C-alpha cells in the first residue's frame, strides 16, 4: 500500500546539510589545488567498463534513430572514472583529480545509492606508502583530525576474527564464521576463499575499523588485487588500501597495475567468476589496455565516495541525509 506518499518533491537532506556539503567540496578542491593536482573531466558514458565480479555497471543504448531507441551501440555509465584517468596518465598527466558521478546497479541502502559522487585522483611516482600518506592527509583535513591509523588486512583479521586470512583454507574460514555466530547466507559458494573472506570482512572486521580514528586497511589478499599491483612478499599481497571511518568504507586505493598481460589474465578469470554467478561476461578489450600497452607510469590512484565523506563528517547515519535527491526521489 503506497497511498500515503506526501511531500515527495522535497529533498531528503536539509539545506543546512547541503551547505556543509558545498563547503567540504570547496575544501577538497583547495586541498588538491595546494598539492598541484589538475582537475579534469572525463566521460560518464564510455564504450569500456571495468570487469569486476561484484560491480554491475548500468548500460545505455546510444540510438541513431529516436523512433527505435532500443537499437544502437551499448555504452556504459562509469562505475568510476578510472579508465579515462589512466589514459590521461599514459598521455603524460602526472597529478590529476576529478569530482564526478559514478553509477552502480543494484546498490541501494543506507550507505549505497546507484548514482553517487566520486572523487578520484592519481599521482605519478607514488608508492603505496606515499599514496596512503596523501589519503591520510586529506582525511585528516576533511574530518578535522590529525590521527589516521593504519592496519594490514592480515593484522585486522588476526585481531577481529582470530584467523590468518592469507593462510586459512575455505573450510577454516567457514568454521570461523559458524563459530562466531554469523548469519550465513544459504547459497554461499562453499569452496570460495574470497567469498568467505568478504563475508567475514563485512560482518566482523569492517564494523571495528576506524572507530577511534580514521583507519586505513592495506595489503589485501593477492586474489583481491582488482587493478592493483601484487607485491611478491611471502605470501604475495595486493598493494591495495581502503579508508574506513566508524565502520564505513570511504575510499579505495591501488598502487596501480601497469602490466597489460596481467590485466588480460585477471579479466578472463573475473569473467569466468561472473558467469559462474549467473551474470554476463563483459568485454575485455578496452582503451585502458591500449594505454597500458603504450605504457602507464607507476602511480597510485584512489577513489573516494564523497557522499559518504559528508555523511561521516556530519555524523549522519545514512546517505539520504546528505544527498538532495537519493534514488527514490530522483
Amino acid at each position, binding site marked *: 500500500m503506497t497511498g500515503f506518499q506526501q*511531500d515527495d518533491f522535497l529533498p531528503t537532506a536539509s539545506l*543546512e546539510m547541503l551547505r556543509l556539503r558545498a563547503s567540504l567540496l570547496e575544501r577538497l578542491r583547495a586541498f588538491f589545488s595546494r598539492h598541484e593536482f589538475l582537475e579534469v573531466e572525463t566521460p560518464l558514458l564510455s564504450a569500456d567498463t571495468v570487469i569486476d565480479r*561484484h560491480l554491475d555497471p548500468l548500460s545505455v543504448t546510444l540510438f541513431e534513430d529516436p523512433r527505435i531507441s532500443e537499437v544502437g551501440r551499448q555504452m556504459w555509465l562509469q562505475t568510476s572514472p578510472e579508465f579515462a584517468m589512466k589514459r590521461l596518465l599514459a598521455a603524460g598527466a602526472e597529478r590529476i583529480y576529478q569530482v564526478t558521478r559514478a553509477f552502480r546497479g543494484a546498490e*541501494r541502502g543506507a550507505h549505497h545509492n546507484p548514482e553517487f559522487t566520486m572523487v578520484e585522483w592519481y599521482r605519478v611516482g607514488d608508492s603505496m606508502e606515499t599514496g596512503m600518506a596523501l589519503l591520510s592527509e586529506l582525511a585528516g583535513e576533511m574530518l578535522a583530525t590529525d590521527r589516521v591509523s593504519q592496519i594490514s588486512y592480515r593484522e585486522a583479521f588476526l585481531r577481529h576474527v582470530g584467523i590468518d586470512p592469507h593462510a586459512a583454507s575455505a573450510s577454516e574460514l567457514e568454521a570461523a564464521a559458524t563459530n562466531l555466530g554469523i548469519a550465513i547466507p544459504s547459497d554461499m559458494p562453499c569452496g570460495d576463499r574470497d567469498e568467505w573472506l*568478504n563475508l567475514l570482512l*563485512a*560482518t566482523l572486521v569492517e564494523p571495528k575499523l576506524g572507530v577511534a580514528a580514521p583507519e586505513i586497511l592495506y595489503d589485501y589478499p593477492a586474489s583481491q588485487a582488482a587493478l592493483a599491483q601484487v607485491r611478491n612478499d611471502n605470501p604475495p599481497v595486493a598493494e591495495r588500501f581502503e579508508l574506513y571511518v566508524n565502520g564505513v*568504507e570511504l575510499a579505495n586505493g591501488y598502487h596501480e597495475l601497469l602490466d597489460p598481460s596481467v590485466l588480460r589474465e585477471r579479466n578472463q578469470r573475473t569473467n569466468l567468476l561472473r558467469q559462474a554467478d*549467473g551474470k554476463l561476461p563483459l568485454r575485455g578489450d578496452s582503451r585502458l589496455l591500449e594505454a597500458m600497452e603504450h605504457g602507464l607510469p607507476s602511480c597510485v590512484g584512489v577513489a573516494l565516495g564523497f557522499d559518504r565523506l559528508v555523511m561521516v563528517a556530519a555524523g549522519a547515519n545514512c546517505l539520504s541525509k546528505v544527498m538532495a535527491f537519493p534514488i527514490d526521489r530522483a
Partner: protein
Amino acid sequence: MATYKTSEFKKGLKVQIDGEPYIMIEMNFRKPGKGAALYECRLRNLIRNTIASKTYRGGETLESADVEEIAAQYLYRQADTFVFMDNKTFEQYELSAEQVGDDWKYLKEGLPISMVLYNNNPIAISPPNHVELLVTECEPGAKGDTATNVTKPAKVETGGEFAVPIFIKEGNVIRIDTRTGSYIERVNN
C-alpha cells in the same frame, strides 16, 4: 504466489519463510569494497512475534506472504487492547499492545491505517508515513530561539513523546515521520 528479489527487499515487506509469514523490520544492504552484496534482514514472525536474523546474497528470492492488507481506522484503546475498524465492512478488529508495538504513539482517533490480515486475523498495522499530532505538554522554549537543531521532549495527544525544536509550544500541531519517529515540521494552526 509472487516472489521478491533481493533488490526489492525493504522494510515493511511481508514474506513467507518455512511456511510462516514474516515482516521485514530492518533491511541493511552491505557491500564491502569489492565483495558480494549482502542483504542483512531482521524479520518479525507475524504469528509468533519472534525476531529472526537472516542474511541473503544478491539474486536470492523470497516468496510473498499470504496476507491481505485492508484500509482501516483506529477507534479506541481499552487497557492493552487496540480497536480498529475496517473502512469498507465496518467490522471491528482487536490487536494487542505487543502487536501494535511502538506505533501506539501515532494512534489518534480516526487515524487511517493499513492492517494486515492473515487467515482473516489481524496481525499487524502500519500507520501513514506522516501523522499530525497535537502537542499537549512541553516545556516553554527560550524566547526568539528559532534553532531547529536543538530539541526538547514534547508529549502529544496520544500520550507519546517526541523530540521537537525549542520553538514548539503546547497547542501546536506537529508532523511526525512514522518511519523514523522524527519531527518534520510544525503544521500551521
